[in-house]
C-alpha cells in the first residue's frame, strides 16, 4: 500500500531496489521511508514495547514516537519512518533497547 496520488504532495518514486529485512530479501523504492517499503511488503510489526514486549506498529510517521526503532546497517534505534531506503540496506528487528556496536 503506497500513496499514489495526493492533493498537494508529489511522490516521485525512486528506482526499485532490493533490501534485506531479518535475513529475507524484499523490494522497495529507493528514497522512500524504510517503513513504507516494509508496510508495502506486509510487515506491520516494527518494534516492541520495552516492559511488556507488546508489538508496536507504524504510528506517528514523523520520527517522534519511537514505535519503529530498528537496527539499520548495524546501527540501533533508527527511526524507519523517516530513514530513507537505500539499495542493499540491512534492516533488522531491534531486540530490547538496541546494542551500541
Amino acid at each position, binding site marked *: 500500500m503506497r500513496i499514489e496520488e495526493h492533493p498537494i504532495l508529489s511522490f516521485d518514486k525512486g528506482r526499485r531496489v532490493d533490501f534485506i529485512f531479518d535475513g529475507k530479501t524484499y523490494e522497495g523504492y529507493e528514497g522512500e521511508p524504510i517503513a513504507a517499503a516494509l508496510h508495502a511488503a506486509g510487515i506491520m510489526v516494527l518494534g516492541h514495547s*520495552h516492559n511488556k514486549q507488546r508489538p508496536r506498529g507504524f504510528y506517528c510517521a514523523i520520527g517522534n514516537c*519511537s514505535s519503529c526503532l530498528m537496527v539499520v546497517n548495524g*546501527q*540501533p*534505534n533508527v527511526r524507519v519512518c523517516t530513514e530513507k531506503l537505500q539499495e542493499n540496506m540491512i534492516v533488522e528487528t531491534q531486540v*530490547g*533497547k*538496541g*546494542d*551500541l556496536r
Partner: protein
Amino acid sequence: MNNTASVVIIGGGISGCSIAYNLALKGVKDVIVIEKEYLTSGSTGRCGAGVRMQWGTELNCRLAKYSIEFYEKANEVLQYDGDIEFKQGGYLIVASTEKEDTQFKKNIALQNSLGIPSVYLSPKEAKEIIPHMDETKIISATFCPKDGHLNPFLATQAYADAAVRLGVKFMKYTTVTGIKVENGKVTGVQTNKGFISTPVVVNAAGGQSKLIGGMVDVDIPVYAERHQILVTEPVNPIQNPMFMSFSLNIYCQQTPHGSFIMGRGDANEPRDLRVTSSWHFLEEMAQSCCELLPLLKDLRVVRQWAGLYCMSPDRQPIYGKADQVEGFYMATGYSGHGFMFGPVTGVVMAETILGEKPSLPIDKLGLDRFEKDELLFEPSVV
C-alpha cells in the same frame, strides 16, 4: 495550616526530608518542611544522582561512606514500598594530567585508610572496566566498586513518606518570605501562606540558601553555580560504572533505564540563580564525551536541563548553627554533592539540633571555619 512548630525546615530536597525524618525518628513533634515548589524541585531532582566514596578530604570521604552505607539498606530502613533503584556499579575516575595523577595516589591512600575499597589503575586496567573508553587520553584511573547511583526522586520520596508516618508536616508550594528574630533568637517564619511560630529554623535551601541566610543577616559564603546535564536515548547496558574526569570536566553514567546522562558546569558563568539550558553545554559536553567515550557518538540526545551547585569555599558542606542567631541552623554548601550526603546530613543535623554529640566530627564543618583560615580544600570536584 499549623501556626506553631518545634522545627521549621526550609527546603524539600533530600537534605530537608532527611533532616525531618531523623528529627521525627528521635521523637521531635511538630516538624514542618516548607518547600517552594514540589519535593525535589531544586537541586535534588536536577542532580546527576551519582554517589561516591572517592574523595580527597577525610571528612568528605567519611560523610560519603556513611551515606552510601545507608543507601545500601534505605529501602528497608525507611520501609519504602517502592525501590530507590540503588545500583553500585562503581565510579571510574580518570587522571589526564600529572597533577591529577599525583593527587589520585594521595586520595587512594586516604580512602583506603578510612576503609574505602578504592584502587589505583593503569589505563589498560581502566579499559577493562569501561571497554569503550579511549584509554590513550588518560594517565591513570581510580575505581571504587561501592560507588554508584540511585533515583533522587524516589530516594527523597522514601524519606518524605517515612517522615510523614512519623508525624512530619510538609507545606509544598509555599515560599518563605522572611524569618523573625527577636533578641537574637529565631521566633518564627513568615511564608506566603501565613506565619509559623518556631524557635528553630533549618536552612536546607540548596542554591537558595544564601538568600535564606540573608533573612537573618547571616552571611553564608556560598554561591550558586549552574551545572547542566543531558540525557540520551536508551540502549542495552554497556557501561556499569560512572565515568568521571575532573580536569576534563565530565561525568557520564548509564542509568538502569539504559539512557546515558552526562553533565558538567562552567565556573566562569555569571553567579546568578539561572537554571536555563544552553547550547554551549550541548556542544561542549557532546564533544568531550565523543573524545573520551567514542562509542557513544551515535546516541541521540533526548533532552537537557540545569540545576545549581551550592559552592562553598573549600568544597565541603556547611553544617551546624549560626553563632549570631540562636535557633538558626544550616545544612548547605555541598558544592554539588548534597544528594549523596543526604543520609548523613539528616543524622548529624538532627543530632546537632538536639544538642547531642554528632556521629561524625562535623564541628570542623561549621560556618566559623571560614573566619579561622584553616581550610582543607576538597580537590576532587566536577
